[in-house]
């Protein structure tokens, strides 16, 4: 199970990259993509949408299931990754290179775990 040290993580298995003052990038961890299985589709929000901490902002579909992706922050969507919209399989093959959205004007944040703490969560699961 791959876990990158330079990123932060949530309990719901999203990774978070702080890209500047009040901006973040969000994706799904290796643990998450492995649990979800082959992904066939991603439903992303639109640029300009509001995201709310700990609420779903997107969902991913496998053949037989849909799973919510939860936002670790409250803010405004400043960019969406059309690459994964076109090729959702990249989330499986390269989870940390497959960001979902960038968020600006971040106000609230959920509890973010460092790689060690996240590793523990994965082991207990």
């Amino acid at each position, binding site marked *: 199970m791959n876990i990158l040290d330079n990123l932060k993580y949530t309990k719901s298995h999203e990774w978070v990259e702080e890209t500047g003052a009040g901006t973040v990038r969000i994706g799904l961890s290796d643990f998450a993509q492995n649990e979800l299985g082959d992904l066939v*589709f991603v439903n992303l929000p639109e640029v300009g949408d509001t995201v709310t901490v700990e609420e779903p902002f997107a969902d991913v579909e496998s*053949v*037989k299931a849909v799973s919510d992706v939860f936002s670790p922050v409250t803010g405004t969507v400043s960019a969406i990754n059309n690459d994964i919209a076109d090729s959702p399989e990249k989330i499986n093959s390269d989870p940390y290179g497959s960001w979902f959205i960038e968020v600006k004007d971040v106000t609230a944040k959920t509890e973010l775990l460092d790689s060690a703490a996240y590793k523990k969560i994965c082991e207990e699961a």
Partner: protein
Amino acid sequence: MGSYIPSTLEERDEMLRTIGIKSTDDLYAAVPSQMKLNHLNIPEGMAELTVSEKIRAMAAKNKVFGSVFRGAGAYNHYIPSIVKEVTGKETFLTAYTPYQAEISQGVLQNIFEYQTMICELTGMDVANASVYDGASGAAEAITMCIDRKRRKALVSSAANPMIIQTIRTYCFGSGTEVVMIPSRDGLTDLDAAASLIDDTTACIYMQQPNYFGQIEDCTAAAEKAHGAGLKLIMGVDPVAAISIKSARECGADVAVGEGQPLGMPLSFGGPYLGFMASTKEMMRRMPGRIVGETKDVDGKRAYVLTLQAREQHIRREKASSNICSNQALCAMTAAVYLTTMGTKGMQEVASLCYSKAHYAAAQISSIPGFDIVYKGEFFYEFVTKTPVDADKLLAKLEEKDILGGYPVEGGILWCVTEMNSKDQIDALVSALKEVSSCN
């Protein structure tokens, strides 16, 4: 009493013993005794012969008309014999939904073929495996178009009243606002439509041909809709669709319609067939089942239900539609019908309907008092005035075994199909002359 239970009384006792209980009453031990029924107050069961007699007697109380000149949502078309033969095959009739693809390739391939045909009919990129009928299809199409910001649907007043009614009921559920676009001279008033559009409008629904049989300018409607950032839903007649500009050629985003004309009998209103098709962009918003092509582990081409993550069994409360069972066998009926008719046969049907309707319209409107009400181009339905009370007129026609047109505001809505021979049409015209001159 009749029964379809194979197990004998001895076998039932053996089974009770295996389970370890004394009687079938013990099976219902969890049911509170005060709720158990002592007596079901319906008639005793009857033998097949008796039931057959009784139901035939009910059927005999209906009148099957010798000639039918009524449409208004249900159409009298010829059903080729092979259609009935194929759709009566026991396996097709009794099969379940093809979730187990390996043993359901026949059902799945048929749906794939049907989807292809609906895409041909409408000019669209993707079709689903059916919805209940044209009216519920129209309502589901509106759901495809609404989003968080756009929650208003503009609906043409020239659409079939039952379709409008169904749209209103569905929108009572979804909280979508329905605004009616007025009609003028039997056509949707597109200028009025333009003035009703704002940035909360999701779509326009128009019927083609419309309820009065008139051919609408859907291309202009699509331009107005797209110019304002909304979608156009066209409700299309599948026979007219052969000859007039397709939904795709007009620029529609979604095409829906009533498929009953494609091989299904009138049958007092059902089962019918709702077909739905859309552009590629709207594929994932489409409700209902969709069959896709794939390969199996040995590389063989195969068919499977796909994009299931749109549907209720996966999305549950997040699904955009709850549809589960659809009109599968009716979709098969349409597929067999279109295969039997073929490209040329369908063109013949359309041409016969169009020609006969225009012949009839010319003949009827030449009788004093039967002026054509809406003077635009029509396909195979048209409205004429009537010089005498419509109900009286229709009663007189009934005496001659003719089901006349449907009484609507302003006159009578006539429908002429390939089932109306020249003799039948001429007999209708004579009857109308007779009835109108007597009064």
